[in-house]
């Protein structure tokens, strides 16, 4: 069965710290991996990764995919309280238009 596992499930750090969130997956026909940030409402799109080793970057956030070892990481540098959210990892399977989500990492940034 296709699945995705995120770790840690919960993380509490201080403002200014750097965090790394992990996402490992077992997928038979991988197409792409996506990261979303969910605050109080809708998940908002962060990154889509399809190729190994190519870092995607947006401000203090960056992500990379390793298709050989079947994982992705999301890095956040110089964290701010506004980064507090649940971070969701999901993949799309070839030929199936649906997202399969991990259970999320709840990140809390304390001032």
């Amino acid at each position: 069965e296709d699945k995705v596992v995120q770790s840690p499930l919960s993380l509490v750090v201080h403002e200014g710290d750097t965090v790394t969130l992990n996402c490992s997956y077992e997928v038979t026909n991988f197409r792409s991996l996506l990261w979303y940030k969910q605050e109080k409402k809708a998940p908002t799109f962060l990154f889509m990764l399809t190729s190994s080793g190519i870092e995607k970057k947006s401000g203090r956030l960056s992500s990379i995919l390793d298709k050989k070892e079947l994982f992705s990481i999301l890095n956040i540098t110089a964290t701010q309280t506004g980064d507090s959210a649940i971070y969701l990892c999901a993949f799309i399977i070839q030929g199936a238009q649906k997202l399969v989500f991990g259970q999320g990492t709840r990140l809390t940034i304390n001032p």
Partner: protein
Amino acid sequence: DTAVSQTPKYLVTQMGNDKSIKCEQNLGHDTMYWYKQDSKKFLKIMFSYNNKELIINETVPNRFSPKSPDKAHLNLHINSLELGDSAVYFCASSQPGTVIKETQYFGPGTRLLVL
């Protein structure tokens, strides 16, 4: 200029009632989805429609019936509501084709509480 919108935002109802949630997207996407997020924040696909045609139905009880009057709208009707239906329901849309276009954009969610 909301991209994906849902109504209502909150829904509190008694067990056994029938209720509907509406979703609209103005992104011009062909594919729309319903996801359910449980109390542990786990998001799971329920249905997807492509250009008004059902393409995914993930073993959801028959009490749930999606309806797509046109490709910009996907409504969810739930009959005989049960306590376990309490969750946040998210609508999403995407444009299938190239991988880059397959990013799914989510609505604000409808928080359903069944008493």
